[in-house]
């Protein structure tokens, strides 16, 4: 081991033996602040949950809308000529009956 390494090892050994600061009791007010934050976070969490629920509900509704529209399109795709014929018939009827 290099001399510097030996020196550093002795230094660290001594440093490690230095009595660590005891911190069993939190400073005044710290516990109160931590618990206050915890309480506030809980309230926020409930609001966020409700918001998330409504957001999911909207997304679900939107998905149903899109699927319905897609289904309607696929259904009306085969009947295009039938719709056009109905429209023409309507026009004729309207022109004959002012």
């Amino acid at each position, binding site marked *: 081991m290099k001399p510097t390494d030996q020196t550093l090892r002795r230094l660290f*050994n001594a440093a490690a033996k230095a*009595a660590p600061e005891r911190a*069993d*009791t939190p400073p005044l007010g710290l*516990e109160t602040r*931590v618990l206050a934050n915890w309480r506030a976070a809980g309230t926020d969490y409930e609001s966020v949950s409700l918001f998330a629920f409504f957001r999911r509900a909207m997304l679900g509704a939107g998905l149903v809308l899109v699927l319905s529209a897609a289904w309607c399109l696929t259904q009306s795709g085969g009947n295009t000529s039938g719709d056009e014929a109905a429209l023409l018939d309507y026009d004729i009827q309207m022109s004959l009956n002012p």
Partner: protein
Amino acid sequence: MPEPEFDVTTCVERVRRRDEDAARALFRHLYPLVARLVRSHLPRRTSPEDLVQTVFMKIFANLDSFSGTVPLEHWVSRIAINTCLNQLAAERVRPELRWADLSEEQMQVLESVTAGPEELDPLQNLASREIVEKLLAQLAPTDRLLMTLLHLEGRSVDEVRQITGWNVPVIKVRAFRARRKLRKHFETLMAEKVGN
């Protein structure tokens, strides 16, 4: 009569059910550990109390994700250390240690430790710690953390792995490089002393 052992699992479950007494008990149980970790890895310009508060906010915010597969103390240690590391990284500027910055007692400690192979006088332990902390403050946050965990707190590589989440080869390589940098800073400091 010995104090009953703290039931972590039950307490955590009660905190998840928004039991304030359980939250208070958990805070008091974890406070010594968090405070010690923050003081060991404290960034220069940050108040320890502020950082302890930040750590506890993160603990409570993420308590739902604690699965119990590792001891709570390891999970909490990781949060505390990562919080300190982030703050250390934000500071960026690291103070350069000059011989003139040392107190008389610290200078004597360095002269003693370089004079011979004997271990230092126990009365010099505190001054040694101060010097070591000044040397460590010159390292990057992860290097400082590793040196503190391995050589000041005497933790094993496996313990460091559990606390930091780094794998063993990464720990060993980083520790090797950190020791090399530390050696260089120490040699620079001692060279300055010789120059004086």
